[in-house]
């Protein structure tokens, strides 16, 4: 028997999409029955009360949560978010309901052994409710009390070899796409690099270091499945600088509409019939730089004019492959809207090698130069993208020691208001007015 009536939420149980309400109700019932005899360390009816307070929000059209200043476990400045409900008498089971961020593995691969150990811990010491996963990428454990936080951390670190993720003005938990582990498009091993960066910068991840949050996201190719270009202060997007590899026989299989060579890897196998595949129209015609030709059953690509948008490769993955000389582009400054409006990542490093053998030296150098500048110059709660806007892209190039190149811009400036520095102008700014007056009357 449910503890609270939830007539509004109950209406979200029908329909085909997995119902979080049904899941929460089933979980509430499991906790009530407690067939495994778990010695729950937070109230056993916490999920009932979570449903109850959510129903109240559905009734009121308003949230019933307050923020709390809890930050983390001892010595950490992030990883835990404090939450309290504003109706503790009616819903004592969620009076204190803090979140813990657990650093997800690269590529979000799991063994069931690991997941079961985690769920066992979370049933014992928390609500048993999670997000798989949060927006940063972490496993989110949703709802426990303050005394449990250190205990959970102790079990995570001592028994599971598992650390927390970041929050606050820390490096946020870096996140990646699955990369080369299962994707032929990936230009570098995102899993290995995200694992390296996360470990290399543990201090920055756990303890405040910056004016505000800082996010790394790693995409294996320009398809950008983890949206790094839109939501990370520093985005690493795989690319290549030699030629797209072409298998001409396979190209012709696509042209012949061979069943084993479906266009776009089968992405259009559905209820709509788009007709037979047309190479001219669907690949050559849509190529943004029109750098491809198909003559005498032979596809040729003017690679010097290719911008590596991935379209042709996405359409014909059996015929076209990314180049061999791979690395990544680094873009900086993306962020969600507050305060100056949303920003997309801007290209800082067109190409850099991704080399695990020297600990990604070329990449960490860029990271640390950018951090030193931002830590020194960034105002409180100013994201990197906003600092770049305030001090200028030139300043960013200066602090990173990167030479300006046309790849940095969509087009050159449309105003001539160049603020020349004194040392850039021959002879400097100090001039002798008397000498001038010898030739120019007052």
């Amino acid at each position, binding site marked *: 028997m449910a503890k609270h009536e939830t007539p509004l939420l109950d209406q979200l149980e029908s329909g085909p999409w997995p119902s979080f309400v049904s899941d929460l109700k089933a979980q509430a019932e499991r906790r009530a029955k407690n067939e495994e005899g778990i010695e729950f360390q937070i109230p056993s009816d916490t999920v009932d009360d979570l449903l109850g307070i959510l129903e109240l929000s559905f009734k009121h059209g308003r949230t019933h949560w307050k*923020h*709390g*200043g*809890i*930050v*983390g476990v*001892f*010595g*950490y*400045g*992030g990883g835990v*978010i*404090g939450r*309290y409900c504003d109706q503790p008498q009616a819903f004592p089971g969620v009076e*204190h309901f803090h979140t813990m961020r657990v650093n997800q593995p690269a590529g979000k691969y799991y063994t069931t052994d690991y997941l079961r150990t985690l769920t066992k811990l979370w049933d014992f010491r928390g609500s048993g409710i999670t997000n798989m996963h949060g927006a940063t990428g972490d496993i989110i454990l949703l709802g426990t*009390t*303050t*005394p449990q936080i250190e205990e959970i951390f102790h079990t995570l670190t001592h028994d599971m070899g598992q650390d927390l993720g970041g*929050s*606050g*003005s*820390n490096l946020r938990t870096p996140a990646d796409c699955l990369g080369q582990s299962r994707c032929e498009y990936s230009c570098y091993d995102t899993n290995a690099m995200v694992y390296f960066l996360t470990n290399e910068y543990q*201090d920055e991840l756990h*303890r*405040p*270091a*910056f*004016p*505000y*949050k800082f996010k790394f996201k790693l995409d294996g190719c320009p398809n950008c499945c983890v949206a790094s270009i839109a939501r990370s202060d520093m985005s690493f997007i795989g690319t290549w600088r030699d030629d797209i590899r072409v298998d001409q026989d396979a190209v012709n299989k696509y042209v012949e509409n061979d069943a084993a060579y479906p266009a776009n890897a089968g992405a259009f196998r559905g209820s709509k019939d788009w007709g037979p595949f047309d190479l001219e129209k669907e690949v050559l015609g849509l190529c943004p730089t029109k750098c491809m030709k198909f003559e005498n059953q032979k596809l040729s690509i003017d690679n010097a004019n290719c911008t590596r948008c991935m379209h042709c490769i996405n359409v014909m993955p059996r015929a076209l492959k990314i180049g061999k000389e791979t690395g990544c582009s680094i873009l900086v400054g993306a962020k969600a809207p507050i305060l100056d409006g949303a920003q997309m990542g801007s290209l800082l490093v067109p190409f850099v090698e991704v080399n695990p053998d020297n600990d990604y030296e070329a990449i960490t150098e860029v990271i640390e130069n950018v*951090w*030193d500048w931002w*830590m*020194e110059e*960034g*105002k*409180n*709660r100013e994201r990197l993208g906003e600092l770049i806007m305030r001090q200028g892209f030139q300043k960013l190039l200066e602090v990173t020691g990167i030479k300006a190149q046309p790849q940095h811009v969509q087009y050159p400036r449309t105003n001539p208001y160049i603020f020349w520095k004194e040392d850039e102008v021959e002879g400097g700014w100090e001039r002798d007015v008397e000498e001038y007056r010898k030739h120019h009357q007052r």
Partner: protein
Amino acid sequence: MSDLLDNTEEATKAVVAFLEKKSKSKTKFYLKDFYKVFPDDKPRMIKKVVNKMVEREILEYWSSGSTTMYGLKGAGIQHSSEGEE
């Protein structure tokens, strides 16, 4: 690193004095506020020393979720946890 930042005892004294001087108006500070206490040092070094003071239970963190601030341990009306201790 400056002599002040390098000397744990003196650095702590300087930080505590700075926070106590300001304690009438507010009790929580950004990392950047400590740059003034150590004008000759790099932010990266200051961060390391100040974070050590949290481990030594002289300071504590306070988080808005998106930013983390520092205060003297137990200071102020908004503690890190509400009515749980």
